[in-house]
């Protein structure tokens, strides 16, 4: 009997020794987070309101957006937000009359102030905050209306051949497209490069580029372009009526129908419904004359004028199909010809070679409109190329690469039959998408 009791006691001891190590709640849990907004300009901060600034939190894990508004002091406290990576933006639109009243400065259009931080990591600690400084950007008469960068299916569509950019006259008067520049904003395309100088936001640190003057803000006051194209013309050769647009095609042909490439072979989309007709484009990019081995699909449509090419990338105006690019349009308000502007190499840690590529440095003040696009895959998004005053966030096509989708600027109003497109310098707000790109279409 004693043996039995002893044995049972041993077993009871063993059971009680089985310690559990899990807690009752996960160590990671929703946290408190505070947003503080202010105006970047001290003078404007004294005059302009900070209540009802629209705050948008987009969760990069699932692309879900939640919108909040600031209190009168410009702050907003979230009691419970899941840790993770968020695109956080702040935006306030002040009517022209209110702005004039408050600041004494007469303006004809509503003024939009934006601020943002892309891919902000909210950690597992309580009491975190973010300070967003609101800044107004340019809202010019020209806007980038539609960008079709994704292309169509590589086997059944036209792949990247059918890409285009559409630029729109958003003003109430006739504009001339002559000498309008279209550029791709250069920036880092990954998170991992170690052989190059980078800013805290992981973007290139252009101030370290070889030959860069030290008395300028190389990162914030300039954009560096990869492809840089210019609409030709004599000055008043290409008028664009209010509410009209120009389409710049990579190759201005009807991609729904077979056509013969420069190598004599027929190029055809097996499923024409996936692609578009660009034979009616206003301009096209034709790189063949200056390439030793041009792209077979880059044929010249004699009915469509070619743009002037100041710099290029690749064998045609091939836009980054996943979308990781910035686009700018500008005119030259200065006296120095754009082709004579300084060019700089990448800010590599090792000195660049004499033959290293160099890129045009475009003053931010020249820029009329800018749009940043990104990939639909949150984990593949890269550091922002455009600062908040040019484009607070970014836009993308939801179905991603080779989906036939384009990003298109939203219609804000129709005045006397003229469509006015939304332009708050925040493409996340201003843009939507088309399931099939549609030159000169609206949304």
């Amino acid at each position, binding site marked *: 009997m004693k043996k039995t009791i002893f044995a049972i006691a041993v077993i009871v001891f063993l059971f009680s020794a089985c310690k559990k190590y899990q807690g009752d709640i996960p160590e*990671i849990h*929703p946290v408190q987070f505070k947003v503080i907004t202010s105006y970047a300009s001290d003078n404007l901060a004294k005059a302009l309101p900070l209540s009802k600034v629209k705050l948008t939190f987009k969760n990069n894990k699932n692309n*879900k957006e939640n919108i909040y508004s600031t209190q009168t002091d410009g702050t907003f406290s979230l009691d419970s937000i899941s840790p993770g990576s968020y695109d956080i933006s702040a935006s306030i639109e002040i009517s022209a009359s209110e702005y004039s009243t408050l600041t004494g400065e007469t303006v004809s259009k509503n003024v939009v102030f934006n601020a943002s931080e892309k891919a902000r990591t909210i*950690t597992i600690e309580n009491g975190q905050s973010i300070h967003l400084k609101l800044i107004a950007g340019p809202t010019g008469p020209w806007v980038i209306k539609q960008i079709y960068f994704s292309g169509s299916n590589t086997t059944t569509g036209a792949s990247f051949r059918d890409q285009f950019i559409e630029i729109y006259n958003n003003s109430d008067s006739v504009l001339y497209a002559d000498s309008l520049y279209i550029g791709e904003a250069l920036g880092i395309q990954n998170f991992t490069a170690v052989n190059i100088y980078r800013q805290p936001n992981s973007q290139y640190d252009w101030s370290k580029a070889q030959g860069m003057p030290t008395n300028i803000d190389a990162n914030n006051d300039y954009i560096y372009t990869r492809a840089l194209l210019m609409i030709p013309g004599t000055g008043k050769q290409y008028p664009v009526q209010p509410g009209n647009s120009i389409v710049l095609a990579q190759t201005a042909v009807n991609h729904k129908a077979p056509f013969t490439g420069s190598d004599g072979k027929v190029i055809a989309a097996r499923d024409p419904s996936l692609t578009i007709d660009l034979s009616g484009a206003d301009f096209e990019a034709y790189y063949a004359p200056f390439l030793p081995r041009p792209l077979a699909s880059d044929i010249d449509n004699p009915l469509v004028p070619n743009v002037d090419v100041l710099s290029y990338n690749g064998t045609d105006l091939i836009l980054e199909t996943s979308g990781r690019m910035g686009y700018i349009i500008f005119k030259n308000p200065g006296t120095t010809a754009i082709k004579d502007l300084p060019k700089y190499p990448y800010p590599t840690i090792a000195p660049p070679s004499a033959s290293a590529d160099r890129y045009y440095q475009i003053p931010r003040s020249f820029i009329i409109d800018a749009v940043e696009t990104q990939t639909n895959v949150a984990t593949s998004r890269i550091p922002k190329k455009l600062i908040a005053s040019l484009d607070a966030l970014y836009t993308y096509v939801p179905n991603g690469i080779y989906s036939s989708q384009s990003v298109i600027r939203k219609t804000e109003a129709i005045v006397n039959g003229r469509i006015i497109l939304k332009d708050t310098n925040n493409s996340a707000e201003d843009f939507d998408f088309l399931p099939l790109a549609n030159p000169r279409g609206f949304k």
Partner: protein
Amino acid sequence: MKHKNILYILLIFGTAFRASAQINDAQHTATDAKQFSADSVQFGAYDFAKISPFFIKKLMPITFNSLKLNQVFEKGTLMKAQDASKVSTTSLSTEGVSQLNSITLWGLFSYNRSVEDSTSFSHQTRNNLANPYYFGSVKNLNYQRTVYNLKASASKNLLNDHLSVGLGTDYRIGNHYSTNDPRGEISDYQLNLLASVGYHITKELALGTAYRHGYGLEKVNVAYKNSSLSQGKVIPEFTNYLINGYGEGEEYNERRTVQNNQIRNGFDAYLSFENKKLGSFNFIFQTSREKQKFDYRTSLAITEYINFNLVSENYRLFWLKKTASNALSINVSYKSNTGDNYMNVYLANSYLFRNKSLGTQAYYSIRKNQLTHNFGLGLKQYEERKQDGIAGNDIRFNQLIYSLSYGVNHQNKNNHNWGISLTGLYNQYLNSDFSVLLANEGVFTKNVIYYDYAYNTTSKFGVGLSSDYSIPMFKQIQAGIKLGLSYWRRDELKDFGRILTNTPGKDRFSSNISLNLYF
């Protein structure tokens, strides 16, 4: 190649059992085996003994061999969100007990092939249900699964039967793949080993312990055959998500592979007390700790994603009392699984999984003339809680499951055997907690979390009916056919203040037919 090896093992196994089964009265053995399988109490003891070699000499018959070819068909949407609305399973299994000199051997081989229709958000095996890290999509998929399982235990007594030593092994290999996009392919295998030792302290009381060690591997890959779908989210329901815990998944259209390496260790403690007056008491305590490491592998590097720790505890008491014509068994069990993850990104855990069940089943068998009556009564409380710290989700439910059964089996003097049984089941919803942040409501929350909560918080009732008939064949075997039907239906769904895009169906039906050989 692996499959061939398994088949060779099966042949060797089968031969060993057949050789040992060649006793003079082969027909008598076959008839006994059939009667044994029809006796809920005795067969319950046999099932209990499969847990460890410590019990196989005590609770298993000296010889018992069976072979079963089974076809199951289930249909209905009264199911969990990640289950299949239609499942067809074909299985072949053989198992038996045999004596090899003084060693008692038990072995089982099974082959299962199932075809699942309409399963979503679940590129998973069906064997790792606490798994917090997997791919899934809204799109309903057709899954085909093939699983081979080989189990064996051996026990030998030493020192005048005072000391018993045993070895056990459990090997499973499976392949799971979907036949439509997004195509998941999961290959997995598990190997678990056990070494036990027991000692008879007194003639009536024996104590034992065992050490368990196991290893497992799951490799998951998701791909698209239709290149249009692979080039982005052309149709949103084809989007591949990475589920990490119990919250919204992350859109994951690149690097769609993950490997899960599992290692588990545990120990058992046993107590067996046998007394002519009181019957046989058998107690098991088992605990194991499993670590699952999820990573992404290329030829260049291994990227570690998360770790998942799972602690299991199992207490089980089985009491068996036999008289000349009656037998009673009572089985009381408590089982719990507690899991938490560890995210390398945050250096902290975000997901807790817990379930526990406390249950008892009683069986009473009466043998009278040529009839065996089986009465069964079961009651089980089941509670499950999933907490996802990142999403802010905390969901718990508590259920009570009743079962009541009666079966009768008749064997005539020609050893023709028929049986029929009826089972009533009731799954009663008791209580629950529901905390899900609306700010995080997305496709997974709507399609899985809300759906499962609705499913788990409604009461259900079911009924099962089975019948079988067997006759002696070829003088050495008892061959039978068994038919079974079951039907589940639910009550009204609980309103928990959320809009459901999809709700659990009203009922689910299943049928099975099996060919059984006893020898």
